[in-house]
């Protein structure tokens, strides 16, 4: 039997473990990643010439980061690694990539998409001002460039990453003005039965929360974001929220890190025509997968945070399982014992994921309360009022129609940062469930291509 051509998109924890598993079975997979270096998000490698230690960069996860980087360095000669390659479409058994303005179509028998996540955002009035960054951006500035996003930083939103990044900022010497969290302690306590499925991670989370209190950092839970103040030229100057007590709090700052946990990057799965289903707990559409990561389309496998937000350890397990599924489906002998052990570990990851979603809930109720002049689409400055008007005046009660008529989701981020919130705005305006309102369909190219893209010489 000819060797199957396997392509992996993503050189993060999921993609690297998938590649390792395939190489161990004697295959030579192609690994495509848009980034210049491997590591993905959490284990992002700093540029050559930077000198901070793994302990400084990755904290408690330093050993795991080093292990993943070492694995990848070993794999390099055994795989076809394509850094700096954006995968922009999947069609007719080919993955379409572009590198330095030059396009190429790579044929595959099996495709493992391990594309990771981006921040999940809910708009707040004023979030278009310069100096408002996604929470992930705040971390990347520090991890990969040694910079803080401002002098006085407010963290606004919710999710496990918020506590972590704020702690990393404080440790690096930045001034953390406050953590303003929309979740309540009660949410976290109620999620405990699920969170104890990973006691070590739970303990780290509790430790992080305690570190903010010990450091005397202002932490407020159960807040309702009201406005990010600023002006067109100078950017952010402050934040106001309504506290759980009903009182208003206004803080001066020159940067805001904003985020509500993560959303999977599912565009490639969409372009490959994988089935999606609505997850009522997190109120988003996800590709349907089996316990090993097989999608509804034969030959397309999905792994890591690009399909379920299980975090880095879960991504490593999912990457191995997806690769083993490829091997099984291509008629190679599969180590059944290893597969059942990995599946069992994955179930604990899934239980923990569900716990995190409960502990730091997506505040969908905020969408209904967004003032009409709040910008929903940062790319093109389209407001909640403009979006609501296509619902009320033109009967656009489905997301793709609302997009066509309002342009929300058509801008250069292609709906990554407005799509979930826009669906909630439409759902609230129509009194329909977001399951009925639907989702923005992924479109090729998954990111804007350079103006002058040419076909690579054969």
């Amino acid at each position, binding site marked *: 039997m000819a060797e199957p051509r396997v392509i992996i998109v993503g050189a993060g924890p999921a993609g690297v473990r998938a590649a390792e598993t395939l190489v161990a079975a004697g295959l030579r997979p192609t690994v495509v990643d848009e980034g210049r270096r491997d590591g993905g998000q959490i284990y992002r490698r700093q540029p050559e010439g930077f000198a901070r230690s793994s302990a400084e960069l990755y904290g408690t996860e330093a050993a795991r980061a080093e292990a993943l980087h070492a694995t990848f360095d070993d794999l390099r000669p055994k795989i076809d690694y394509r850094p700096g390659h954006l995968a922009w479409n999947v069609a007719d058994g080919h993955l379409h990539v572009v590198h330095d303005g030059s396009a190429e179509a790579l044929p595959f028998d099996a495709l493992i998409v391990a594309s990771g996540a981006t921040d999940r955002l809910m708009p707040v009035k004023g979030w278009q001002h310069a100096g408002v960054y996604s929470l992930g*951006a705040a971390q990347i500035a520090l991890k990969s460039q040694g910079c803080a996003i401002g002098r006085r930083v407010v963290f606004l939103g919710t999710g496990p990453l918020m506590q972590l990044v704020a702690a990393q900022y404080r440790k690096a010497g930045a001034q953390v003005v406050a953590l303003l969290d929309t979740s309540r302690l009660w949410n976290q306590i109620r999620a405990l039965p699920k969170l104890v499925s990973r006691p070590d991670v739970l303990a780290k989370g509790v430790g992080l929360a305690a570190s903010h209190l010990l450091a005397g950092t202002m932490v407020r839970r159960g807040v309702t974001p009201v406005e990010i103040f600023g002006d067109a030229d100078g*950017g952010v100057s402050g934040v106001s929220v309504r506290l759980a007590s009903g009182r208003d709090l206004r803080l001066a700052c020159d940067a805001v890190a904003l985020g509500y946990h993560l959303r999977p990057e599912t565009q490639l799965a969409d372009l490959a025509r994988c089935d999606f289903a609505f997850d009522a707990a997190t109120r988003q559409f996800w590709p349907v997968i089996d316990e090993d990561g097989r999608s509804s389309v034969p030959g397309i496998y999905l792994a890591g945070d690009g399909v379920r937000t299980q975090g880095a350890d879960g991504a490593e397990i999912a990457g191995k399982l997806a690769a083993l599924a490829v091997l099984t489906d291509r008629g190679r002998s599969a180590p059944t014992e290893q597969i059942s052990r990995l599946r069992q570990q994955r179930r604990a990851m899934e239980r923990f994921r569900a716990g995190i979603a409960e502990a730091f809930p997506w505040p969908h109720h905020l969408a209904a309360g967004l003032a009409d002049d709040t910008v929903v689409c940062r790319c*093109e400055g389209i407001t909640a009022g403009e979006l609501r008007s296509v619902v009320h005046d033109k009967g656009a009660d489905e997301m793709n129609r609302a997009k066509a008529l309002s342009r929300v989701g058509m801008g*250069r981020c292609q709906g990554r940062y407005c799509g979930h919130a826009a669906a909630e705005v439409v759902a609230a305006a129509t009194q329909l469930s977001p399951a009925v309102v639907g989702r923005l369909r992924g479109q090729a190219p998954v*990111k804007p291509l350079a103006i002058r893209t040419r076909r690579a010489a054969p």
Partner: protein
Amino acid sequence: MSPLQPRFVRLAETDRPTVPIVVDGATVEALEGDSLLVAVLTRAGHLRHSEFGPEARAGFCLMAACQDCWMWTHDGDRLRACDTPVRAGLSVLTQPPDMPWPNRA
């Protein structure tokens, strides 16, 4: 904050060789390994102006996903500042050359 005031603050890795780049005709000292975004925002408050609204923009995601950080070369090519590393002599514009953008009323 004044638009001329730097937005980002360097907290580590400051001991790197400098690299001269040119922004709107003015030479700026970046550090080797900087992204274009960091090189500009450690010197200024923004990267560009929004073509759809009044605000200055300074990037949003830093992970090549939002496309808020576009800058331009003199040939009109777009650069994504957050994942473009600086190199000596790189010359960029905060507005596309000779291309008037429609401003939304």
